[in-house]
Each structure stands twice: as structure tokens, then as C-alpha cells.
């Protein structure tokens, strides 16, 4: 039996930090604010680490009951926490990477006027994310799920005076609502059929149901609905459109929320519900197809983007697609493995991009960068490691996890593998394109003094500098730590070590179709994907370093297709035309002018006018003449008596 771990402390600590900074931060100094933020997020990490170390050799889920929440008949939901090896991984990734990004943000946001507000939101995000991870039932998870959505909204719109940031925040929030709708319906189905939302109780009832049994349709429906929710939160087709826009937020936010942690909540939720998905093959196929398509689709858009953060955003969407591909192939542990390594290298890439943006004074367009490797060598080195990692060059972290996913996908269906491998090639290409455009060649930026007006990113306007400069140590240290993790993070996957670690969660109950396949095939596939990664590297080198005039020619020869990709396949425009415009027009014409003004307003106004007219007539009865009142009373009494006589009351 595991001792009492006091898991509740882990989410409460960041909440306390958020409250302190939110209530008192405005009057405190920046130093005090950053100390509060760092101490509370760091304490959460430390406590998570302690709890995990005390829990770990165990493979029995640990449950911690706090307080009853809802009791209604035989249905009950509690505030209770749940720790197993899956949540262990998530817990360490979220608190660890979260803490590093807090440190980084101190440097990045130092000159922002709303310094305290930023850290209050960031801590609040950690609180909700940890609630999501540690929940022992779907409802508590849903609280965290909505809470991180709220934090994401607040942080995307952090610079809310900028119109684009405010609307990007709204877009993220609204698109997420669509997904949450599916999630909620899924939960209702769970309640209706299993009378519980507690993970253990639900899954215990699901386990006896077979793939072919009577519950198959139900489980498929629940699975697909949960996947709809995951699509919203994890930015999968068709709900991915909010994530690229979310880059309007400060870069550390993009790193923490929109790359490393929150967007992986969908993957976590699907993996947590693996018992349901494993018994619903159709739902699994849906997951795999959505993941594969998203991975490929987003990667192609990534090729043409010129905003450094947009490239990374589409890359995130694409990598999340990989994770869902793994989950859909039934390889949940591979998905979680990639989630972890992705948190390291994508967090690092975003922080590195933030450092680059910081150094060139707020510029985000890669065409105006170039040659930065001599100016900011540390950032360059860490970015290089992250790029190698995401491209899947061995032996860095991304190689191990991506290879694991591709191998499992191949076992499920070779088509997934083909698309996945091509995507790996594209990934490698656009990431090295980013690297070469940013760090190689000559510096093409405008002389950095006038950036303050041109790009009103707060926090960069007021320290003029002549040429790109390296970021302060407080920003570089997290980069180095994450670079180290990106270097070695994959080694836990050697000999399927990570998979075995998660076996108590995923592996024990469902026999894998092919447990250990043909060793030669695995090596061959690995070789091909490594080859693809290098091919992407070389192609990017040729196009962007040795023959920089070529990309334009290729773009010209592709013509309208290139335009389509450049404009993200016009998906935003299509959504605007198909969904947004009818909705806005319908609201204006039908709901506002029709229902609101014609029906609701008019009915109330007419009622008021009617009352006025009636009382205009009736007030003549109140003449002030005493004898007419007496007459009315007498007449009324006469009527009552007549009525009673007619009824025969006297008899």
C-alpha cells in the first residue's frame, strides 16, 4: 500500500501563486512577482517529483479522496485524485516543463507592463492542467479541461489591446467549445449507461464488453464523441484552425500551452480512455485517420509559412497528429512517449524562437532574419538540437518516439506508415528551412532601432540596440536544460523501456495484434525514416543555403497550388463562408431583427401599450365621486347576491 502522497498540494500550490499574484501583484515589484510565481510553480514540481518517487515502483493506481462533490441517488462524483504511471509521465512533463517556462518568462516578459497578470494566468493554467491530469473521474477532468481553455483564452488575448490578439483568443475559445460539446455528449452517454464518471468504475464495467458484443455501438459512439473533444483541444482536423492564430499570445505561452502541455490534453484523454477505445475499432480508426491526415496536412502548410511561430504552430498540429496516429493504431504508450519528447523539443523550439524574436527586437518574419548564428550562438545551438530532434535524426529524442509511432502504425496499417514517413520527410524539410532561413546567410533585418513602432510587441520597444543580441541567462538556462532533455529524452525508449513502464496502464489487458514483429522489417523502416529525415535536411540546405534563388522558381512553377498552400488551403476562408458568415448573418437577420426585435421586444412593448390603453378607459371609474363609488359597491354586491341566489346557496 502506498503511503499518503498528498497529491492535492500539487495543483493547489500554483493556484495559491495565481491568487497571490492576481490580488497583490499589481502593487508588488517585478522581483516579488517573479519570486512568487517561481516558488509556487517550482514547489509544485518538487512536490510532484517527491510524490512520484514515493509512488513509483508500484504499478497499482493510487487514489486520493478529498471531498464529496455530487451525491444524487446512486450517482456520485467526488473531488478525488488518481495517480498511475500514465499520470506520472504527464505530471512530470507538465510541472517540469512548466517550471522551466516560468523561469524563461521572467526574462522574456520583464519589460511588459502587465508582468504580474501574466504570471497569475500562467500559474492558473498550471492549476487547471494539473487538475485535468490528476482527476479520478471525467467530470473533474472536464473542469481542468475547461479551465485550461480559459487560461489559454486569457493568455492568447494577453495583449488584448491588439485587435488580432483579442479575436484570436475568442476564436480559440469558440472552436474549443465545439469540441467540448462532443466531449460533454460523450460524458452524458457514459453516465446514462454506466451510472458513474469515475474512471475505475466506468472501465471496470467496460472491460467485460467485447468488440463484437452488444455494447459495441455504444462504445463506438462514446469513443468518437470523446475524439471530437480531443480534436478541439488538441487542434486536429477539422478543429485545428485556432492553434495557428493562438500564436498571437506571448511566446512562452505558445511554448507552454500551445505546444508542450495543454494541446496534448486530448492525447492524454484518449489514452486515459484507452479501455473504451480498444473495444471500439471504428472509433480507433477514426482517431488514426484524423491523426494521419492532420499530420500530413499541417506539415504541408508548414512549408510555406514565413512567420517563425506559425511554422512551429503548424508543426505542433502535425506532431499532435502523429500522437493520435499512434493512439489510433492502439499504441497508446508510443503516443504518450511522443507527447513527452515533443514537450521537450517543441517547448525548446518555441522558447528558442522567442529568444530569436527577442534578439531581433520583435520581428517574427523569417525573411527578415538570417545569419543569426554568429550573433546568438547559444540560442542557435539549442535550436539546432531541437530541430535535429524533431526531424527524427538519431539518437535524439524525436527519433525514438517517432520511430516507435511509425513502427506501430505500420503494424496497424501500412498506409498510415507511408503517409507518416512522408510527413517525417516534410517535417525535416520545413524545420531545417526554418533553421537555415533564421541562422544562415546574411542578416536581412532592418536596423533594429525602429522596431518599436513597426511591431508593437510590448516588452521590446524600449531598449534600443543596434544589432541582434543574445538573451539573458534567465532565458538561456531553460533552453539548455530542455536541449539536454531533447538530447537524451529518447533513451528511455530503448528496448521498449518506456512501453514497459506504461505496461501496467495499457499493456496488461489487451493482447497486441503483433507483439514483437519481424526485427528486420523494423530496422528497414527505421532506416527509411532516418533516410527521409536526412533527405529533408539536404533538400532544405540546397534550397535555402546553396541555391537560395530556387524556392521562388519552384513556387512560381507550382502556380495556384502553391498559392493554395501558402493560404493554408483557404480553410479559414471556407470556414468563414460556410459556418461563420451564415451564423453571423442568421444572427443579425433572423435572431436580432426577427426574433429579438419583432417577437420579444414587440410583444413586451405591445403588452405595455395594451395595458396603457385599457387603463386609460378604466380610470374613468375612479372619478373621485364618493357616491359613484358607493354605487359600484352596491352594484357589485347586487351581482354577488344574484349569483349566489342563482347557485342556490340559501337552500
Amino acid at each position, binding site marked *: 500500500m502506498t503511503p499518503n502522497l498528498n497529491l492535492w498540494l500539487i495543483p493547489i500550490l500554483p493556484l495559491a501563486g495565481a491568487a497571490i499574484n492576481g490580488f497583490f501583484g499589481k502593487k508588488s515589484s517585478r522581483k516579488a512577482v517573479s519570486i512568487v510565481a517561481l516558488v509556487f510553480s517550482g514547489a509544485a514540481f518538487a512536490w510532484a517529483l517527491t510524490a512520484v518517487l514515493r509512488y513509483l515502483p508500484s504499478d497499482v493506481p493510487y487514489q486520493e479522496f478529498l471531498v464529496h462533490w455530487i451525491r444524487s441517488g446512486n450517482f456520485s462524483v467526488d473531488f478525488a485524485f488518481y495517480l498511475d504511471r500514465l499520470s506520472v509521465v504527464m505530471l512530470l512533463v507538465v510541472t517540469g516543463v512548466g517550471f522551466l517556462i516560468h523561469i524563461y518568462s521572467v526574462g522574456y516578459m520583464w519589460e511588459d507592463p502587465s508582468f504580474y497578470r501574466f504570471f497569475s494566468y500562467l500559474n492558473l493554467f498550471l492549476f487547471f492542467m494539473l487538475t485535468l491530469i490528476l482527476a479520478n473521474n471525467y467530470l473533474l477532468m472536464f473542469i481542468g479541461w475547461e479551465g485550461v481553455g480559459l487560461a489559454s483564452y486569457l493568455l492568447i488575448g494577453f495583449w488584448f489591446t491588439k485587435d488580432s490578439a483579442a479575436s484570436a483568443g475568442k476564436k480559440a475559445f469558440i472552436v474549443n467549445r465545439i469540441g467540448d460539446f462532443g466531449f460533454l455528449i460523450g460524458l452524458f452517454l457514459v453516465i446514462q449507461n454506466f451510472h458513474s464518471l469515475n474512471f475505475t468504475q466506468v472501465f471496470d464495467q467496460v472491460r467485460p464488453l467485447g468488440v463484437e458484443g452488444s455494447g459495441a455501438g455504444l462504445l463506438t459512439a462514446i469513443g468518437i464523441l470523446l475524439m471530437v473533444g480531443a480534436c478541439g483541444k488538441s487542434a486536429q482536423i477539422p478543429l485545428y484552425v485556432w492553434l495557428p492564430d493562438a500564436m498571437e499570445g506571448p511566446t512562452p505561452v505558445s511554448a507552454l500551452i500551445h505546444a508542450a502541455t495543454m494541446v496534448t490534453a486530448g492525447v492524454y484523454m484518449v489514452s486515459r480512455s484507452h479501455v473504451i477505445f480498444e473495444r471500439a475499432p471504428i472509433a480507433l480508426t477514426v482517431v488514426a485517420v484524423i491523426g494521419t491526415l492532420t499530420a500530413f496536412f499541417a506539415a504541408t502548410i508548414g512549408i510555406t509559412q514565413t512567420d517563425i511561430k506559425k511554422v512551429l504552430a503548424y508543426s505542433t498540429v502535425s506532431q499532435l497528429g502523429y500522437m493520435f496516429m499512434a493512439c489510433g493504431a492502439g499504441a497508446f504508450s508510443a503516443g504518450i512517449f511522443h507527447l513527452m519528447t515533443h514537450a521537450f523539443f517543441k517547448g525548446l523550439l518555441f522558447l528558442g524562437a522567442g529568444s530569436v524574436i527577442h534578439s531581433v527586437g520583435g520581428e517574427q518574419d523569417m525573411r527578415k532574419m538570417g545569419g543569426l548564428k554568429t550573433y546568438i550562438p547559444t540560442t542557435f545551438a539549442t535550436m539546432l538540437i531541437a530541430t535535429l530532434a524533431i526531424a527524427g535524426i538519431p539518437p535524439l529524442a524525436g527519433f525514438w518516439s517517432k520511430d516507435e509511432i511509425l513502427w506501430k502504425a505500420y503494424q496497424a496499417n501500412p498506409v498510415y506508415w507511408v503517409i507518416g514517413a512522408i510527413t517525417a520527410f516534410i517535417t525535416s524539410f520545413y524545420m531545417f528551412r526554418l533553421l537555415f532561413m533564421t541562422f544562415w546567410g546574411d542578416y536581412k533585418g532592418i536596423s533594429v532601432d525602429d522596431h518599436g513602432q513597426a511591431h508593437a510587441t510590448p516588452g521590446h520597444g524600449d531598449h534600443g540596440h543596434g544589432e541582434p543580441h543574445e538573451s539573458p541567462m534567465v532565458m538561456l538556462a531553460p533552453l539548455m536544460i530542455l536541449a539536454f532533455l531533447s538530447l537524451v529524452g529518447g533513451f528511455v525508449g530503448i528496448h521498449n523501456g518506456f512501453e514497459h513502464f506504461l505496461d501496467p496502464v495499457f499493456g496488461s489487458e489487451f493482447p497486441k495484434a503483433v507483439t514483437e514483429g519481424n526485427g528486420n522489417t523494423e530496422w528497414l523502416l527505421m532506416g527509411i525514416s532516418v533516410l527521409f529525415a536526412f533527405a529533408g535536411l539536404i533538400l532544405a540546405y540546397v534550397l535555402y543555403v546553396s541555391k537560395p534563388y530556387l524556392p521562388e522558381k519552384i513556387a512560381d512553377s507550382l502556380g495556384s497550388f502553391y498559392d493554395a498552400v501558402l493560404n493554408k488551403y483557404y480553410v479559414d476562408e471556407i470556414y468563414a463562408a460556410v459556418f461563420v458568415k451564415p451564423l453571423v448573418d442568421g444572427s443579425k437577420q433572423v435572431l436580432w431583427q426577427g426574433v429579438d426585435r419583432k417577437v420579444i421586444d414587440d410583444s413586451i412593448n405591445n403588452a405595455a401599450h395594451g395595458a396603457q390603453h385599457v387603463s386609460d378607459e378604466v*380610470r374613468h371609474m375612479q*372619478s*373621485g*365621486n*364618493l*357616491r359613484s363609488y*358607493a354605487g359600484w359597491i*352596491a352594484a357589485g354586491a347586487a351581482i354577488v347576491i344574484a349569483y349566489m341566489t342563482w347557485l342556490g346557496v340559501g337552500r
Partner: protein
Amino acid sequence: MVPLSYYLVLSGILFACGVTGFLIKRNIITIFMSIELMLNGVNLSFVAFAAQWHSLAGQVFVFFVMVVAAAEAAVGLAIIISVYRSRETLNVDQVNLLKL
């Protein structure tokens, strides 16, 4: 013994006289006396029923009515005097300051 119906008819006549006076007279004092007439018409029916059914309840009610009537007379006459002092008239149709 006089039958009950005689009392009730007399009571009805008294009440009707009161109502009529109340409706057609303009002098406040007359109206006031008409009210007393109505009250006593009702009182008469109360005591008639009490005697008929050998029940004290009706007589108790009559006492209540008389108490209320006495109180009403005190308050009402006071009001009438103050109205007369300020308006110099006892015609209700001319006491119409609250009229629209």
C-alpha cells in the same frame, strides 16, 4: 311567537333604506346615518337568528358590531367636523380635491 321571517323582512327593509339613503343623499351626515341604519338592519337579523337557534354567537356578533359602530361614529364625526371646517360644506360631491 313572531315568526323569523318577519324579523328578516324588517331587517331587509332597514338595510335597503340604508343603501338607498347612502346612494342618493349628498349630505355627509345623512350618509353616515344611512350606514348606521344598514349596520342595525344586519344587527336585527343577527339577534333574530340567535333567538331562533338559541345560540349566543349571534348576540356576541351584535356586540362587536356595536363597538365598531361606536368607534366609527367617533372617528367619522371627527372627520366630518374637520371637513366642514376646511370646506365649509357637507356636500360630498363638492369634496373632490383628489379627482383627476
